């Protein structure tokens, strides 16, 4: 297998979430996947600009999308927030004429960009390009007897008509991933609930209540470890302290992958 992709890391993966990236890149190498980091990627802005009149905040995503398209490659993301922003901006470029026109007028690329690039999250790459069955065959150290709960959060799943990641109410991609690594996935009700996200900066009390609900749910169903794809989810879950109280550890899904592939 020799697969080649453009890769968009994002700001947090170069600083506070280096583990998310390191384990992903090491695992990709083992899986025969070449992830070529884009040369001049810019911060995606972390939140998708929801107002219809915001254009400038979408430009950085388009630059990355257009560059990957120029190279004829799919664009792989790793951070849930980056994926959300870039995927939704791409959808705007495909379907919103007003935005497409203004962005192209501003960027003056060699060719107008119209949402042609396909952007996929690393998990989608594992599921749809490599396949969980092939992944399972490459596992060197199966994570036997580990009870792992997927924490999806919001950004990969919703709005599902744009993200098209999985069933927004009852997803299975991370559970299937956990199963492929030889561990036992635990389904608990709050796995798709919001952790509070950026409220961490201003309203820690609201975040505390939201993360408490998630841990109570996970604990009740016997989860011993939580995995996530989002640095901010991981931070909110960790800082709450409920993980320590309930003996539930929190890690990135890529750490699990690297461990099972024997490259941790």
């Amino acid at each position, binding site marked *: 297998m020799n697969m080649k992709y453009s890769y968009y890391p994002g*700001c*947090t993966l170069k600083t*506070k979430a280096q583990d998310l990236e390191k384990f992903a890149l090491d695992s990709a190498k083992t899986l025969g996947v070449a992830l070529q980091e884009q040369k001049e990627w810019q911060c995606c802005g972390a939140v998708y600009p929801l107002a219809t009149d915001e254009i400038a905040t979408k430009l950085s995503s388009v630059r990355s999308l257009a560059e990957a398209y120029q190279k004829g490659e799919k664009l792989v993301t790793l951070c849930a927030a980056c994926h959300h922003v870039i995927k939704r901006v791409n959808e705007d470029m495909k379907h919103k004429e007003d935005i497409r026109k203004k962005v192209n007028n501003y960027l003056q690329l060699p060719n107008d960009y119209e949402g042609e690039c396909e952007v996929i999250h690393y998990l989608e790459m594992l599921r749809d390009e490599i396949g969980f069955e092939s992944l399972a065959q490459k596992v060197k150290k199966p994570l036997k007897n580990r009870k792992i709960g997927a924490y999806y959060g919001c950004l990969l*799943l919703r709005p599902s008509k744009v993200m098209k990641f999985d069933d927004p109410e009852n997803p299975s991609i991370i559970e299937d991933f956990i199963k492929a690594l030889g561990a036992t996935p635990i389904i608990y009700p709050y796995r798709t*609930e919001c952790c509070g996200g*950026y409220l961490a*900066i*201003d309203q820690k009390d609201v975040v505390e209540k939201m993360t408490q*609900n998630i841990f109570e749910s996970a604990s009740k169903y016997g989860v011993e470890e939580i995995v996530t794809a989002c640095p901010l989810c991981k931070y909110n879950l960790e*800082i709450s302290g409920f993980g320590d109280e309930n003996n539930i550890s929190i890690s990135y899904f890529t750490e699990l992958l690297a461990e099972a592939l024997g490259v941790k």
Partner: protein
Amino acid sequence: MTRVKVIPENKKNIIDKIIEMSGENIRDCMQCGKCSAGCPASDGMDLLPHQVIRLLQLGQIDRIVESKSIWNCASCFTCAQRCPRNIDIANIMEAIRLTIIRCVGNSRLKADDVPSKVDCKMPQQAIVSGFRKYNK
């Protein structure tokens, strides 16, 4: 019988602006409450999401602007995902916030405040998000 205008003329502009910025049709809302039932941040809200929409329909923007609900919303899109009338309430919440913070001096998060709000583990993602959401 005199006809009562639901939206007072002096509020019409701001409500039109909110509708335009959100790209949503608030008249589609039938007040089923599904958004409020599923909102994970509703615990401390003084106005529930469906009540915000109702007040908008009635032109009572002042009560919304004063409420803390719009700041409790974390844009998680659960409401939008479940709305049977396909209204993206997160877009409306954002448009309301923007009508406030886009006024000069009204940024909710200022650069000077950041050092007191971050700790050494907080990811850049949180700070960038905060600025995008609260500072114009």
